[in-house]
Every structure is written in C-alpha cells, then in structure tokens.
C-alpha cells in the first residue's frame, strides 16, 4: 500500500468508526466527518496540482475508493471525488460540498418537476449530479423534497424538485458522450461494492475461524470452505471489475466499462452478502454486530443506479447494435 492510501486509511480508522457510522445513519450530522476528510485534501486528488489537487489519475485513486467501501463510509467520498474530476474534465466549475450521482432512474416528471429516485448517499449530499431527459444538471439538495424508500439506517433517498432551482448548474452536453452521469454513478459504486465485499469476506473468515461447533472451528468443514472459496472468487472479480472502470484517461470512465463493472459487482454483491450471513448465523443479523453495516450497503448499492440486469441489457444492446467486429473485438476494446 502506498503512503497516500495508508494515510487515508488512518483517517478513516480514526474518524469513520462504526460508532460514527451509526450516529450518521441515525440522522446525526455528517458535517464533522465531511470537514475532516475535506481538510485532508483527498476530495481534490483528481484535480491538477495548481488547483490544489494531487493530479492523480482515476487508476491511481482506485485504492482510495476501495477504502471507502471497506470502511462503509457514510459520506459520498467516491462520488464527490469522481464527480469533481468529471466536472473538471467537462470544463465545468467544481462547487464545494458533497456530491451524490443519480443513475438511470433520474427523469423529468409530467408536471415539469425533476425526480431522482433511490440516490445512493442522497441523504447526506449537497448536490445531485444527474441527467434529466437529456439535460445534464447539478441540482442542490436543499431545494429538494426528500423521501426515504429504504429501511433503517439507509442513506439512499428519493429526491424531487418541483422545478429547476435557481442555484442549479445546467451543463452543456458534449457532442461525443464517453460517460453520461448515469454511467458515472455506476462507475462510482463499483469500487464501493468491491471494497465492502472484501471487508465482508475478511469478517467472515475471522468469524468462521473463531466460531466452534462439533468441537472444531467451522471453517474446517469442507462445505464452509467451499462457500468461502466462492466468496473469495467473487471478491477478486469485483476488485478487477472496479479497477477496470477506474483505468480511464482524463478522469472520465468509459461508459462500457461502467456497465461491465456495475453489472458484475452488483451480481456478486448479493452472493457475498448471502454467504456471509449464512456463515455468520444469527449473530450476523443483529444490529450490534458490524456485519450489517456492510451487507446493507452491498444490497443498496447493488440496487442503486441500475442493477446487474439493467447494465447487462445496456451492454448487450451496445454489443448487438455494433454493425462490425466480433465479440472478442468488443472485449479487447474494453481492456486496451
């Protein structure tokens, strides 16, 4: 791990403890955690040095994004960092504050309002970046009506604006779109899912080593080993999928890779969460035990901004509608 990543991990360990997560999830303020991490300078890592940034590429920032998943960070660190880089790459001003990103659910309602249902981190964001019937916008959350369509502790909310607020930033859409806001939303969730899944695997390994039944640690049973092996496979694949989408020029991920990463990470998230709970037994579903902090997020982030089926269909359409080239050509084009 490089020094940059180590330093951020220390900040997360000290500031984003599970007590802090529970406090913010319960409706407590996220302002202190936000200002701690903002003060560290990490929100601007993708910006050029003369802009106060660290001039990292998305690929170099990838380990930082994984950490945010590993620590179930209750503020939109990955989304804000990625959106700041993306805004900058599109020649836009980069506002202060936490940015959430709306997925393919964002749309204009019949009455002229703007709706962004089920936005990950919508409860703790200052801005929502999204595409509303062809218009790219940054919308201020303080002007939105928020409704929670989720269970206890969730930071996913529905946001609704009755009209375009005065403080909204309306962007001009480029002629060639590499990565629309919905794809950026998917790209940001991939490393979060991968990081949280890795943490869930580690917790399950620890638990199955300590828990004894029939006179031995349950990890010694072959059926448990097989489940843990499959979890590890999925976690390794999720990390690769997330690293692929972060391998991008100019801080703008490829739309295809965003689809690939979100599809694979979403599907695997369910397998990992299900196996973790099966192997933890009843303790895993208690509020007190930390596993739920991660598995709730795995399932929410899977549903946010398009599930595996949505992104698989998107990708399938993209492959079939190409008039030339083989399936192998398509795969190669994604991994150049």
């Amino acid at each position, binding site marked *: 791990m490089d020094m940059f990543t180590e330093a951020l991990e220390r900040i997360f360990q000290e500031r984003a403890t599970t007590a802090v997560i529970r406090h913010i999830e319960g409706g407590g303020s996220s302002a202190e955690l936000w200002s701690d991490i903002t003060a560290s300078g990490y929100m601007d890592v993708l910006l050029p040095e003369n802009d106060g940034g660290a001039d990292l590429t998305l*690929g170099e920032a990838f380990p930082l994004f994984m950490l945010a998943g590993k620590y179930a960070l209750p503020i939109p660190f990955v989304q804000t960092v990625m959106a700041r880089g993306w805004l900058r790459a599109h020649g836009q001003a980069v506002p202060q504050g936490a940015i959430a990103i709306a997925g393919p659910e964002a749309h204009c309602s019949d009455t002229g309002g703007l709706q962004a249902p089920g936005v990950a981190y919508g409860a703790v964001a200052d801005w929502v970046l999204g595409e509303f019937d062809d218009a790219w916008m940054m919308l201020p959350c303080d002007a939105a009506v928020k409704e929670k369509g989720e269970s206890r502790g969730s930071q996913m909310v529905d946001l609704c604006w009755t009209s375009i607020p005065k403080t909204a930033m309306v962007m001009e859409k480029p002629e060639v779109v590499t990565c629309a806001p919905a794809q950026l939303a998917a790209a940001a969730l991939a490393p979060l899912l991968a990081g949280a899944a890795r943490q869930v695997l580690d917790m399950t*390994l620890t638990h199955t080593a300590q828990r004894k039944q029939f006179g031995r640690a349950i990890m010694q049973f*072959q059926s448990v080993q097989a489940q843990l*092996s499959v979890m590890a496979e999925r976690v390794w694949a999720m990390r690769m999928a997330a690293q692929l989408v972060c391998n991008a020029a100019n801080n703008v991920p490829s739309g295809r890779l965003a689809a690939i990463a979100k599809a694979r990470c979403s599907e695997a998230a369910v397998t990992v969460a299900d196996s973790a709970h099966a192997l933890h037994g009843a303790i895993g579903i208690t509020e007190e035990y930390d596993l739920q902090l991660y598995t709730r997020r795995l399932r929410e982030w899977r549903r946010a901004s398009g599930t595996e089926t949505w992104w698989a269909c*998107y*990708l*399938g359409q993209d492959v*079939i509608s190409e008039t030339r080239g083989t399936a192998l050509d398509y795969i190669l084009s994604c*991994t150049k």
Partner: protein
Amino acid sequence: MTIDTLDLAFIPEQDEALRGPVRAFLRDEVSGLPANLRARSWMGFDADFSRKLADRGWLGLTLPKKYGGAERGPFARFVVSEELLAAGAPVSAHWIADRQSGPLILKYGTEAQKQFYLPRISKAEAFFCIGMSEPGSGSDLASIRTRAVRNASGWLLNGSKIWTTNAQHSHYMIALVRTSGEPKDRYQGLSQLIIDLSLPGVTVRPIADMSGDAHFSEVFFDNVLCPVDALIGEEGNGWAQVNAELAFERSGPERLYSSMVLVESWLAHCRKNPSPGSARLEAMGNIISWLTVLRSLSIAVTAKLARGESPAIEASLVKDMATEIEQAIPRLIADVIGAEPRIVASAELRRVVAYLEQLAPSFSLRGGTREIMRGIIARGLNLR
C-alpha cells in the same frame, strides 16, 4: 491470506503486435470451416495446421531461441492463444506441449533433454500428452499406482493412465508415476517420466465421448522399458513439479474461450435477426461482462508468470470462475434461442449449441475439478 492481489495488467505492445498477423492467417485457414467444427478448438486435432503455425514461429513462444523457441514470453503466447481459440482453430496437436510440457522440460530437464525435445516442440514435430489420472485415481492424484522400477538398463514401467487427452495422437507422455514407496506414502516417492509412446508394451485405447468424438484415451504400460534419461527432474520430486506445471495449465485463455465460437456465432445471428425482447440483451451483456473481467484476471496471472512467479492458487481461482462462465454460455444461449421461437436459429448454430452442451461438463473437470480448485483456494485463505 496467501492469495495474491490480482492487479490490472496489460499486454505489452510488442506482443499485442502479433495479433494482426495471426488473425490474417486464421482468416485464410480457419474461418471457412463450419462453426460446429470450430467449436472443438483445443479438442480439434490437425497436425498440419500446427506445423503451419510452427513455420510462422508461433509455437514455442515462451522457449529460448537456443532451443528453437521464439523467446517471447507468456504474453506473446496469450495473444496467439486467444486468437486461435476465439477463431476455433484446431490446436490440440501442439497445445499441451506448447503450454506446459515445453516449459516443464525447460525448467527441470537436463541439457540433453532440452536439446532433444524443445526444438521438436517448437517445430510441431513432438506432440505431448499428460499422464495423471488413473482408473482408481482422479482428484486424489497422490494415490496413483503406476510404478516405474529402476533396473540396470532403465525404468521398468507397469500400470495404466486414463482420460489422457490426445494420447492416441501424441509421441510422448509426461507421466506422474510412483518410483518408490507405496500409495499410502502419498506425495512421497512420485516422479515424472517422459514416456516414448512408441515403445513396446504401450497400448493406447481411445475412449468415445457422448458427442461422438474420441479426444481422450486409456493408456496401458505392460513391462515398458524406458531409458534411464526418461526421468525428468528429480526422482521423488514429481508432486512439486506437477504443481508448478499446473500454474501454466490452469490460468490461460483456454479456460475462458471454450464456448467462444458459440458466442461469435450467436452474436452474428442476433445482428442478422433483430428482436424486441430483452432476454438476448441480458444474456449477451452477462457473457461479455464476465469474459471481460475474467480476461483481465487471466492477464494478471500471466503477468505473474512473466515475472517468473508460480501463481498456482491465483490460477485456480481464475480457472474455477472462468470454467463456470464457459459452462454457462451454452445454457444461456440455448435458453434465449428457445425464448425467441419465431426467430429460427440456423442448423449450424444449433449444432454448436448441442455440441457444447455435451462438451461443457468437461470444462470444469479437465485440469482439476471444481471441488479441487475450491480446496486449493481454501488453502490460500488459510482454512486448511
């Protein structure tokens, strides 16, 4: 945890440059064959085809020039293999020798063995098979009973091997045999021999499979006298050598593209026959996204091989997942074809589906079963 992180890696440009010439060659040689023949790929035997590849310098890519190789490394082999498999080229004649017997001889062989075998492998003049499973030893490989006893003139070999891919077409078998001790001694006392399959006392009996092919055989050894220098590597070190070899066997593109001819045929079918349904989109998206991620994992393992590491556990992890998607492809595509009953798939496409449905169970058997792979991963997780 002893499973290494698999980081995104890329094929170097000079190796990527091989893709164009290989593709042009395959367009002339292979693309005209019916898809159900191409679907056999690394089960398809054609010695002349392998010699044509050798003439172009595309065999022995990982072997040194002084032994007739191209001295290019694992990435070059990855590119050539990927193109051969995706096109459905009949590569089985040289496949095993090029993938693992050559590297094994390079690593453990004497100078004389290297000088004898490696140039022949690079010229597609020596085809190899691997003798591991026996009638009573499949996944429990350490229980093998085939025995070689050292006498004044060499190794006297008795026993049998089974499910040996390509034995009926091969010149040599690298076999894991017992050279001392008893089956209860497990990993102790095992050695590897290079067996000349033309020796007296060797009987090869092909076994028909359910698709009508005979790609594997049973091989009997009845008092076969192998020369002293049939031993490869160290006597008693066979288990360790076999495991090092398996890192080459388990990580490559052949664990990814066994159903690729079907993917390509079905993609062409979908483009030609539009459908408003979403079933095909979902299946296509799932297949492409899985293959993209697994290809990157396979390249990450290849990068480790290129650095001289022996990533046996990581290779097992990739193999288990990759064979899962290889097996899922015929199932998913068959379902979508049936879900679009008014868009009739050509007989050729349906033959590919039917053939792969029957071959697919072998994807997770060959090279070590799913259960063995998961056991290896469990060891990597320090569970055993």
